[in-house]
């Protein structure tokens, strides 16, 4: 055997050994990663089982019958009453606010006047709290926070009267029960029983007389008496 041949055979053997060693290392590494994954999976399963058992324990401790027992002994909660629920955003907005009964104040359609800006301003100053009933619920002589309701009632007001007059009429609380549905009527009647002084529609008259700057008062432009009569009917 020549030395070249021997060299070759040693090299072959060496490369085979190296390849085997490398693949062995790789295999071991793969095995290691595999078992690591398996370990993690096992840990996940164990944790999930633990979660399930804890959930079960919590549910057992807080079972419905137990809650009832605690409630009877410690808390005494009862089912909520009808008046503890709010019906719509308007009621939510007025929640906690003191119910303000605004005294009958001069109501005038100051901004509604189409003639001249100056005059309109004068009129506004003369009768300070005058505003469109539907535009500013806070100053309407209805309950605060009932912003949505006037809009409904407008449509049901006397249709023959001009638009502005209808808005004025709408501020009259006493007209409502007669013109809205029986369910709403019951509600508003109960509330307005507490404010016998609210007579906004009637108070429109002094408002008109107090502001001489207005070119044409309501009394001149509309048949106010017929509207009031309509409201009282």
């Amino acid at each position: 055997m020549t030395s070249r041949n021997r060299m070759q055979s040693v090299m072959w053997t060496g490369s085979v050994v190296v390849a085997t060693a490398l693949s062995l290392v790789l295999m071991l590494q793969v095995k290691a990663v595999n078992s690591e994954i398996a370990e993690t999976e096992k840990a996940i399963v164990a944790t999930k089982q633990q979660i399930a058992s804890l959930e079960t324990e919590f549910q057992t401790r807080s079972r419905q019958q137990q809650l009832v027992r605690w409630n009877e002994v410690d808390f005494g909660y009862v089912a909520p009453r009808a008046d503890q629920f709010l019906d719509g955003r308007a009621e939510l907005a007025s929640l906690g606010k003191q119910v303000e009964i605004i005294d009958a104040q001069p109501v005038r359609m100051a901004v509604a006047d189409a003639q001249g800006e100056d005059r309109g301003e004068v009129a506004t100053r003369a009768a300070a709290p005058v505003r469109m009933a539907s535009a500013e619920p806070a100053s309407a002589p209805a309950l605060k926070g009932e912003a949505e309701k006037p809009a409904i009632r407008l449509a049901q007001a006397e249709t023959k009267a001009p638009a502005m007059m209808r808005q004025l009429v709408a501020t009259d609380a006493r007209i409502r029960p007669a013109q809205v549905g029986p369910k709403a009527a019951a509600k508003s009647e109960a509330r307005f029983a507490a404010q016998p002084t609210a007579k906004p529609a009637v108070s429109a008259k002094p408002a008109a007389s107090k502001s001489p700057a207005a070119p044409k008062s309501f009394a001149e432009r509309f048949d106010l008496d017929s509207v009031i009569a309509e409201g009282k009917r």
Partner: protein
Amino acid sequence: MASIPLGTAQGLSGPGPAHRIARQAPPPAPARRADLRATTLKLARTRVALIAFAFALATAILVLRVAMIGIFGSASAFTPGGNALLPDRGTIVDRNGMPLARDFKSYALWFNPKAMEGGPPLTRSPEEVARKLVEIFPDMNEAELAKRLASGKGQYLRRRILPEEANRVFRIGEPALSPPAEPSRYYPEGNLAAHVLGYVGADGKGRVGMEQVFDDQLTDAGTRGSEQVLAIDARVQAALEDELLRGMGLSQAKGAGGIVLDVDTGEVVALASLPSFDPNHIDEAGMKQMFNRVTNQVYELGSTFKPLTVAAAIDAGTITNLGRTWPTGAPLRIGGFAIKDSHSLGPSLNVPQILMHSSNIGTAQIADELGSARMKRTMERLGFNERPYIELPARGFPIWRSGEWPRITTMTVSFGHGIAVTPLHLASAYAAMVNGGIWRPSTLHKLAPNEVPKGRRVFKEATSARMRQMLRLIVTDGTGRKAEAPGFRIGGKTGSAEKPGAGGYKRTALVTTFASAFPMDNPRYVVVTMFDEPQGTAATSYQRTAAWNAAAAVGRIVPRIGPMLGVYPDENRDIDLSDMRPLIGNDGGHE
């Protein structure tokens, strides 16, 4: 390779002729020597090639294996723990996903005398170990425990122990007392909805309730991973059971039953039969309570049938005017039978008054006018001639008269006698009466909107609207006033029927029922409550009729369950009774 001496004749040729040659002529001729050398070299080369090939093959296999692992992943390398999470038996949840029955690994205190492998079962004396165990479980008997430990037989010392107790047992340090975690069926809510759920027997098979119905799906490897969803709402169920139990206590009743049914889908939101049993601990006392009063027991439900009769008459057109009056002053004699009222209700009553005062005489005349055929057909269409529609295995068959009904049967059925159905039948019929007239089968499966059965029409829409008014009237002004819950617009009818016994009806043993629906302006749920033999107690003003127990229970149940089911109280809303008021005047109801 090293063991073969290259170049020697013995090593290469073996015990052949060469051996003999070598012995005969020790120094071979030069030509022969060259020949031998070539042969040896050739053989060596062949061997090297063979060995190289073997190495190459091994390397190739290794490389291939690495490639396989790399390419095909670790699918065969290890089994992931996915199966470990698959329960032995599937979970049952309520309509909101709250588990009502689930698999739970619970610890058991198992004495394993073989744990020490040959030696004595315990490292200490049985008395000492027993003392330590009693420290953990104070209710165990120390002497008896010591005896059991000394016996050396493998046995359960305790079936279920808490995890913390298991840890303490482990800390005693006895290998024979290592608590194994055993899979078991567990009902976290205890005896809540026990009749609906049932239990799992020692053989692993479901019994009584949905455990039995779902048995295949719950145990099949392919389906047990997913949950079985019931129509039951655990919170509503709890409120129903709680109030029924309270009612039972107040009226000293033998039992009670209740259903909350969705009128538009037929889903049973709650179903209770009391007294109940604890599916976690099945014992003899529990076995006695497994009878389901709501789906299996049939009762003559009495006056709750009157609205159904009136609805049938309005629907058939025999009542065209609700203001028409019927004589109710004297008992009605049919053949040898007299139909009486519980007390005198005046000379004549109109339809709403008949229902409000619950007059047998009036209802019987309405049914008589309607006729047997039509009356029977309506009852059939309400499903009173077959077992109730529900998945539960326990479904009672009604006491139903087949063939043509004689006049007296029609009349007695009109006020709920001579016919016995389950409370579930009644609930489905009331749902049909108030939902616009469509009868649907009741179900314990949670239904998706597209799964709701079409049902069959029993009453006209207009009839249903009229009945809603009259049922509401019974609660506002009639016998059902105790059921009134402000803002919930409940409507319903009381029924107090005497239980049949040996030799006729027993006057003191009543089955009281209140069949109701809410809210009456747009009915969403039917609530039926039933009490078995309630007594007159101080809490019920010494009355035993439905108004004082069944109706009062509904009045307490509805405010609790309404908001959970999305029905909020509103005192400004109600069904319009303005056209009914003139018919009843200032009448008050009696029971």
